[in-house]
């Protein structure tokens, strides 16, 4: 039954130890395909970036400040995206305040407290599926619940409704990435803390969450970027294509008409191209810059936490 040992191999010659390139054709082909994939991926990203910057260069170079500080207007020379910037920043703030605590809290519960039984598994599967639900569906939910049912609180089609809708949209992403970050914390850390008489709460607060924080931040930033890029749900919730900023009381800032940068992009793109060439691209560049800065803040925060953890 057993394979017979071949005995001592022959004395090696230089030839038998040399690498024969031809023998590893499949490996070389595989490597070539990988390089192709990487080139295509990076190439596409750069193509998008360059085309947007090139298209928007005219508007951005001729009247950058006006474009950033003016509200929407029917005059292509006056039109700006300040309302979109304001709306997008408010949405980012609402998502941070609503989706992060709820999402991270849910992840901690699922990973640390839930028993891993059928109910837990069902919830986990449901969360994963929710991450794949098209954003427009969240828009319809937001319209029904936040705009209509809760009109008294949200003020209808307001930045609150939009922010809450996008919070729901990114909640599954926050839960999934936070769960994975928590799961990746080595159990030796929690064992060590339990071994010293820490309670579950102390273990989570002093070991699990700090160690998982870089991963949680990464997921949170991704979800903010996702929220800032969505136009479809905001369209359904009723973000304005065009509104005039009159005098606004404090509450009106949150409950009144609103728009967001992706809505600006979509609206500019619909206008006649002869006068509005470049506005959509210029607004896209603004979205990219805003997302880039939010990423930067998170990267710095992550680096500081990582450094404090001594890794």
């Amino acid at each position, binding site marked *: 039954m057993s394979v017979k040992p071949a005995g001592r191999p022959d004395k090696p010659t230089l030839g038998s130890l040399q690498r024969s390139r031809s023998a590893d054709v499949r490996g070389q082909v595989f490597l070539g395909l990988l390089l192709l994939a990487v080139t295509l991926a990076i190439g596409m990203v750069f193509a998008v970036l360059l085309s947007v910057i090139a298209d928007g260069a005219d508007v951005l170079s001729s009247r950058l400040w006006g474009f950033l500080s003016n509200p929407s207007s029917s005059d292509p020379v006056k039109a700006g995206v300040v309302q979109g910037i304001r709306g997008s920043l408010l949405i980012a703030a609402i998502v941070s305040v609503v989706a992060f605590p709820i999402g991270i809290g849910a992840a901690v519960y699922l990973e640390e407290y839930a028993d891993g039984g059928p109910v837990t598994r069902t919830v986990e599967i449901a969360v994963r599926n929710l991450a794949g639900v098209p954003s427009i569906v969240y828009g319809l939910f937001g319209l029904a619940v936040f705009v209509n049912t809760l009109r008294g609180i949200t003020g209808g089609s307001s930045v609150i409704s939009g922010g809450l809708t996008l919070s729901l949209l990114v909640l599954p992403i926050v839960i999934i990435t936070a769960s994975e970050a928590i799961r990746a914390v080595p159990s030796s850390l929690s064992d060590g803390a339990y071994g010293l*008489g820490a309670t579950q709460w102390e273990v989570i607060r002093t070991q699990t969450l700090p160690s998982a924080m870089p991963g949680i931040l990464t997921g949170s930033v991704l979800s903010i970027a996702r929220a800032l890029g969505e136009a479809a749900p905001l369209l359904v919730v009723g973000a304005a294509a065009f509104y005039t900023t009159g005098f606004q009381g404090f509450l009106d800032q949150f409950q009144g008409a609103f728009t967001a940068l992706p809505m600006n992009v979509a609206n500019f793109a619909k206008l006649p191209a002869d006068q509005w060439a470049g506005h959509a691209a210029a607004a896209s560049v603004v979205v990219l810059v805003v997302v880039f800065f939010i990423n930067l803040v998170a990267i710095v925060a992550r680096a500081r936490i990582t450094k404090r953890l*001594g890794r």
Partner: protein
Amino acid sequence: MNETRVIETNRGDRDDEQLPSSAVNSVFTTRGLTVYYGDFRAVGDVDLDIAEGEITAFIGPSGCGKSTILRCFNRMNDLIDSARVEGSLLYHDIDLYDDAVDPVAVRRRIGMVFQKPNPFPKSIFDNVAYGPRISGIRGSMDELVETSLRGAGLWDEVKDRLDKSALGLSGGQQQRLCIARAIAVSPDVLLMDEPCSALDPIATGIIEELMGEMKKDYTILIVTHNMQQAARVSDRTAFFTAEADEATGQRRGKLVEYDDTSVIFSNPADERTEAYITGRFG
């Protein structure tokens, strides 16, 4: 090293009707201690009297349940959902598995050092101060940290870099830091689960020497794969083995023999012990 004791502790045969009482104070007394993982009986019917101020070694082949038994003594098995403990485990006459006993309180008195050094990703100082802080001790920890690090034989090596990350220490230093961290809460007992298996012989020697000094203050239970280590450091040795169950064919752990280390290594009562310590098995 191992002076002969007048205690008769031979547990070679589980059918002993009455266990002779120990001449020294027992820190732990187990009777019929059995651990299940789900339906699987991992190790069973363990009767041990752990004497105060001594080093007790658990030896045996992989899968014999020695680490599982060790983790009963500070209720670390509670953290494994499927684990279930039966039988009795008395700690100074208190049933550790009584419903009224809080495992958190148990672990503050019964410290643990793990197989792989697991310092927290914090500074050396904060590692040692971690236990006292969660125990609610406030104020300056400088003296406590120094005493604990001295107790673990690490002070001179780290006194100038207490605020540096513990992850920058060598493996042996990390393990001694974990010992310092464990003794900082002034435990009664230290459980050591193969504390040297990830360390080189020099670091191992340092920790073995340290254990000899620490037994003045603490009762120590150590699980080890290294029989020479058990022979060198321990006062008493418990030999476990894993045997296939006739009915299910599953390998289950059991305690074979428990006696003075000198007896286990020179004149064991059970032939399985002799086969193991002479290297013919396991």
